[in-house]
């Protein structure tokens, strides 16, 4: 299975499959360093409190305790970090800003000893008034979560110059056209207020980090980390180190979905290891990971105007996203949500006002298809609502109004690089849209765009060893999406080397070259392009060596299955490399560098590509209980080119399952800032019994992406499409929803309203 060459479009088996089915694949929690300590964290029980004193005397006496860290230990470093806004101390300095904010850290010989010591730490808190909801935080006389005048911007915010104001950590505004006049003249206006819940990413592997200081100016980590180079930059700033002296190893990640984006437990692990003088491991419980990163809850007002024939005129949107106590990736989520708000339609005018709000809740960050997931279900439900008023169905409304390839999505940004009308027709085909249904079966569709790709900076090195086998050095993180398989396949294609002869080792910031991040569906597009370029450089070198060896023109030589060929003549790569170096050693090196064309790559000029968020569902509603069953999901992966269709289909199925969880039952419930359902018994994610009966998957390959072979990223869009499609399927039955998740009670109440009104 692995002993063959896999080209573009072939379903290469996962290169990590063997090690994962045998339990040999190493995750951060599986690694043990000699002399390594285990760490537990004491967290604030209050949503907002001043720390008057911390007494660790009794805790220090617990057998096995080696070091205890509090805010008082951070005086000799810059303890504040945050890639967007440096608003977060490693542990609370004097104020705890959410229930769960780290206040003290214990490193001990065993987890049990560390836990025992945590119980012996005495903290005298003075509780403070808290703002634990968006409404409280945006009220006139609200207390402020931060003294924003003292905050510095982070190194990687990428969002221009901005300043937090009061509890508004970031705002983003879009406006085009004369929208007041457009609304005034519209034949149809629909309007609503909507609520979106806070959601937990739940990667089964929790945030896990090991830190070690091999020398006073050298920091080394093993971490479950999606963006090692960005974390490296933040750690270097915190501890005053050169970036090259911070080395981060990235083993396999047990899922990420955005929760392991940016800096997580690394500063705490590094600080306690520094104090203890020994390596230390932080391994979160699920409850702690819920308090580390979550999806923003949101409130939104939207209204949409159209002509009597269903042509869209204008949209006005106001968005408040709860970023919690620390900005984390909130500013980018706000900007992406604003981008997603108009939806992929031709608008004479729209206005979007989006705000990120500080509250005394756990911080919110990235989660697969952020922004788009928040807004698409709202915008798409208003498209269908207009359709019902003017007598057009969902497909007709979209065919009439969707943007076409090459049209501007956002003034000055990248024009649309997809065929959305073609895509939506596939959704209709998969749903059998023109076939009748019964009164309890509804169908719905949703389409949107996600500003994807992040900063287009990726590099890669491909090494062909003297035996003709290949090592690919690339820092994209394998978190399950299949990155190492796809990178192997891109090399297999260009160099015609069997999969079994290609290795993609763990990421390591001292060895594998710079990659901006693993997120925004960018790996295959951008890191993949870097790998592709590096492989092509080796290809040229191989052709050159063979041409010189055989005294022929390089253009007459082909590469096939590990050998160069000229007519009947052939030579294994190992022979070419032997010829090149004159002995059985040496290696060929190719490098690939991807950087923004014309030096751009700012957020304003982006995105790298528009990820298409499209799908449809058929659902069955039990009118008496409000229970929903998902009968069928239709996904369309608009991939440009499919390197590995089976992996794409896997992404679509996984993203769809998360999307239906997000739509139907997932919600982190807070009361006065306290998380009430902080275990996997209380926070329910989809099981085998919740997924769709049927899954129909299309892959569209129009070669319209910026990656090699015209490919572009996929895998997030289906998540954003699912709530939209489900809400529209319900609305097709007359059951109109303005709040997620679609719990049986909420659906039942809406169903009762629908029955009364008919």
């Amino acid at each position, binding site marked *: 299975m692995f002993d063959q060459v896999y080209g573009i479009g072939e379903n290469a088996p996962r290169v990590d499959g063997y090690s994962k089915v045998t339990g040999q694949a190493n*995750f951060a*929690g599986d690694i043990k360093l000699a002399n390594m300590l285990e760490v537990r964290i004491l967290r604030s029980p209050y949503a907002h409190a001043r720390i008057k004193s911390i007494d660790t005397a009794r805790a220090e006496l617990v057998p096995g305790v080696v070091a205890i860290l509090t805010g008082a230990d951070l005086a000799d470093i810059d303890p504040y970090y945050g890639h967007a806004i440096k608003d977060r101390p490693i542990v609370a300095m004097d104020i705890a800003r959410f229930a769960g904010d780290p206040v003290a850290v214990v490193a001990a010989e065993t987890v049990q000893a560390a836990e025992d010591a945590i119980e012996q730490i005495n903290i005298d808190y003075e509780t403070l008034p808290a703002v634990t909801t968006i409404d409280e935080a945006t009220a006139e006389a609200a207390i402020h979560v931060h003294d924003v005048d003292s905050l510095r911007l982070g190194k990687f915010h990428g969002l221009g110059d901005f300043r937090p104001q009061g509890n508004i950590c970031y705002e983003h505004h879009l406006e085009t056209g004369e929208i007041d006049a457009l609304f005034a003249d519209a034949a149809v206006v629909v309007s609503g207020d909507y609520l979106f819940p806070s959601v937990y990413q739940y*990667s*089964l592997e929790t945030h896990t980090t090991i830190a070690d200081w091999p020398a006073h100016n050298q920091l080394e980590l093993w971490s479950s980390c999606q963006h090692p180079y960005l974390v490296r930059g933040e750690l270097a700033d915190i501890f005053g180190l050169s970036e090259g002296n911070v080395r981060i190893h990235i083993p396999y990640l047990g899922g990420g979905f955005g929760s392991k984006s940016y800096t997580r437990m690394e500063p705490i692990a590094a600080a306690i290891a520094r104090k203890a003088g020994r390596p230390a491991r932080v391994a979160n419980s699920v409850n702690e990971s819920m308090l580390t990163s979550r999806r923003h809850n949101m409130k939104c007002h939207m209204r949409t105007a159209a002509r009597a024939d269903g042509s869209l005129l204008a949209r006005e949107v106001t968005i408040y996203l709860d970023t919690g106590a620390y900005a984390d990736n909130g500013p980018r989520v706000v900007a992406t949500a604003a981008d997603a708000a108009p939806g992929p339609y031709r608008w004479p005018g729209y206005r979007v006002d989006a705000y990120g709000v500080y509250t005394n809740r756990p911080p919110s960050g990235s989660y697969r298809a952020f922004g788009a997931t928040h807004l698409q279900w709202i915008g798409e439900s208003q498209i269908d609502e207009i359709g019902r008023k003017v007598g057009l169905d969902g497909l007709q409304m979209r065919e009439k109004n969707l943007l076409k390839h090459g049209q501007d999505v956002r003034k000055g940004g990248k024009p649309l690089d997809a065929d959305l009308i073609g895509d939506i027709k596939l959704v209709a085909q998969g749903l059998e849209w023109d076939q009748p249904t019964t009164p309890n079966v509804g169908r719905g569709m949703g389409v949107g765009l996600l500003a994807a790709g992040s900063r287009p900076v990726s590099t890669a090195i491909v090494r062909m060893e003297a035996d003709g086998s290949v090592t690919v050095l690339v820092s994209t993180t394998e978190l399950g999406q299949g990155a190492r398989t796809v990178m192997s396949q891109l090399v297999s294609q260009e160099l015609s080397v069997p999969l079994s002869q290609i290795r993609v080792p763990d990421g390591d910031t001292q060895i594998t070259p710079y990659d901006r991040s693993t997120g925004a569906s960018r790996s295959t597009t951008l890191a993949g392009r870097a790998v592709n370029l590096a492989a092509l450089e080796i290809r040229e070198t191989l052709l050159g060596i063979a041409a010189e060896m055989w005294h022929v023109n390089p253009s007459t030589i082909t590469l096939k299955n590990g050998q160069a060929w000229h007519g009947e003549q052939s030579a294994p790569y190992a022979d070419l490399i032997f010829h090149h170096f004159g002995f059985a050693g040496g290696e060929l090196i190719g490098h690939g560098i991807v950087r923004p064309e014309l030096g751009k790559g700012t957020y304003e000029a982006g995105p790298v590509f528009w990820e298409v968020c499209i799908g449809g569902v058929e659902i069955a509603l039990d009118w008496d209980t409000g229970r929903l069953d998902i009968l069928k999901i239709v996904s369309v992966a608009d991939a440009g080119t499919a390197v590995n269709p089976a992996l794409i289909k896997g992404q679509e199925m996984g993203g769809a399952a998360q999307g239906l969880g997000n739509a139907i039952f997932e919600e982190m419930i807070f009361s006065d800032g306290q998380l009430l359902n902080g275990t996997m018994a209380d926070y329910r*994610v989809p099981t085998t019994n919740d997924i769709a009966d049927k899954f129909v998957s299309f892959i569209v390959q129009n070669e319209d992406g910026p990656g090699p072979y015209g490919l572009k990223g996929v895998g997030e869009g289906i998540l954003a499409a699912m709530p939209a499609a489900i809400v529209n399927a319900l609305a097709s039955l007359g059951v109109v929803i303005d709040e997620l998740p679609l719990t049986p009670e909420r659906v039942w109440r809406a169903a009762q309203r629908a029955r009364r009104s008919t």
Partner: protein
Amino acid sequence: MNKISIVVTVNGREVKAEIEPREILLDFLRNHLNLTGTKRSCDIQICGACTVLLDDQPVSACNTLAYESNGRHILTIEGLAQNGELHPIQNAFIEHNGLQCGFCTPGMVLATKAMLEDMHNPDESEIRNYLRGNLCRCTGYHPIIAAVKDAAQRLHNGDERADV
């Protein structure tokens, strides 16, 4: 804390150990025996990532005391492949992309083994019911279900045909 002695057969090999009475099987396997293929996630017997077979029955190692394994047989994921040959279930998971991040995979594979010993040809709903205690956040389960169906064919239909 006073330690107690246990004798356990782990992946066919007898192990004698001194353990604390409170030690859970998951920590015993991972820390004492360095068998890190068994994964920790939810800690409360919801997710199934720590599933191992205790006398052929699936248990959550996070909610089983190590002492409960005294005198019994444990199979962990490390013991499934024989002499470098993958078990048919493992091959089916690879071929159907029944895994992505791989964190749920050891538990999922062992739960599947127990299921296919109980039921030689489970249908779709039997598979879904059996595996509802094993969470996977990556695959959406469809490829796992396909892998289980295929593994059942490989393990049992082949045998039946051979018997004929």
